[in-house]
């Protein structure tokens, strides 16, 4: 009997390709949700929060975009924060909510995917990646109840089906697949309203980029937490494309040009939106 158990434990250890599980055995204090837990909601107003991120489907896959501002209460905490992270060659996470835990989760997720790939010699399926992220969000539930929620958007290119797919989450790790577009964070309602009017099936890269930026500009216009394009400091929203050919960055120059065009048109017709 003893022998059986030993054998089974060894087997489970050898057959495990998860980095989170390795970390749980080796350094459990580094996992999300470990360490002291907040017992009041006081932290909510002083901890920087990421504001608006969105993902939209287009002809070649998915475009992810986010503004660059982090907000703590009524203060700007950072103007240059990045909210869209590459998780592997074919997927990315857009983080919204408490910025510190969210960035750590994005890093853990990235390590988890790479670890699996190295151990198994093969990539996780997009479905598998989406589930894994849900499990990580669930570990943070206690902090989330105290106002330090992490609610990312996950998007990627599904090689098996040959399309882009996107997922949103709730604080319990609940995972919901969205069909065409979604936004998350304090300006998400405004961004979604804009997306509802602007999104078209099978948009090309140019149109999708414009649709994403226009929605972010609308969110920044209505939501005090979301930052708009900043021509004085030269800070523009982050935009990434995920398609069959991999995870790509839309260069700052191009984002600036499109922002200028959108704002120029709005100025001309005298409609601030």
């Amino acid at each position, binding site marked *: 009997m003893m022998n059986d158990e030993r054998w089974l434990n060894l087997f489970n250890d050898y057959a495990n390709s998860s*980095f989170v599980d390795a970390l749980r055995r080796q350094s459990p204090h580094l996992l999300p949700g470990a360490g002291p837990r907040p017992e009041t909601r006081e932290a909510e107003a002083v901890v920087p929060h990421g504001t608006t991120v969105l993902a939209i489907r287009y002809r070649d896959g998915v475009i992810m975009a986010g503004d660059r501002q982090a907000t703590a209460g009524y203060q700007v905490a950072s103007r240059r924060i990045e909210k869209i992270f590459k998780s592997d060659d074919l997927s990315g996470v857009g983080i919204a909510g408490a910025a510190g835990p969210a960035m750590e989760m994005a890093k853990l997720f990235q390590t988890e995917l790479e*670890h699996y790939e190295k*151990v198994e010699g093969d990539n996780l399926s997009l479905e598998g990646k989406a589930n894994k992220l849900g499990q990580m969000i669930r570990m943070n539930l206690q902090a989330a109840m105290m106002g330090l929620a992490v609610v990312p958007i996950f998007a990627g290119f599904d090689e098996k089906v040959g399309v882009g797919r996107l997922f949103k989450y709730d604080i319990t790790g609940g995972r919901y697949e969205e069909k065409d577009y979604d936004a998350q964070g304090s300006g998400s309602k405004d961004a979604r309203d804009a997306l509802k009017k602007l999104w078209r099936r099978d948009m090309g890269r140019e149109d999708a980029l414009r649709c994403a930026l226009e929605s972010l500009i609308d969110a920044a216009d209505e939501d005090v937490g979301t930052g708009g394009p900043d021509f004085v400091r030269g800070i523009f929203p982050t935009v990434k494309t995920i398609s069959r050919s991999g995870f790509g960055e839309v260069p700052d120059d191009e984002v600036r040009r499109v922002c200028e065009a959108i704002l120029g048109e709005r100025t001309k017709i005298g409609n601030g939106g």
Partner: protein
Amino acid sequence: MPLPYYVSPEQMMKDKAEYARKGIARGRSIVTLEYRDGILLVAENPSSLLHKVSEIYDRIAFAGVGKYNEFENLRIAGIRHADVKGYSYSRGDVTAKALANAYSQALGNIFTQDIKPFEVEVLVAEVGDANGAKSEIYHILYDGTIEDEHNYAAMGGQADEIRRFLKDHYQAGSTLEESLQLGVRALSVTQNKTLSERDLEVAVLDRTKERRKFRRIPPEALSQLLGTAK
């Protein structure tokens, strides 16, 4: 009641070493060569699924000879070590030296304490920058002995002959193509047959690549580099 028996420590170590060496000598060999853009790893391996050479971290690769389940175990332990370290400090803090030391300790302990030693030799390679840090190659034996090698290394059944061959023929600053051809010649130096791309597993740590430097060279590209493409 069985009779108590005594075996001298010298005899015991000798027996274990001989046992491990025999196991390793049965296996096929691996060579590693520094070339212009990084480090090349060439293994004689007829299987395209069970790897002998693989990626550990951004700049670090692993190679093992001997008993597959044993070096596979070491490989996974290495990936865990590197990923945990990189996650808790930073990616730049993961080094081949620390990993090679950990392997050396683990193999040394197994050799002295377990009845059966591991029948493996492993190699840890880290590619350096184009200007600055040099590449590092560590070779760890079944009993935990660790050596740092320069320019080239060989391990497995015919390692001594291969090393002699490389000593006479190795040239620094060669291209990938030249190094690969030299590596394949070195592997076949003790055999009568010539090795084709189907018998080989080849990977490089390519310093011109972004972050993750490890890259496998698939059979089609291999036959082109070897000049055997039809």
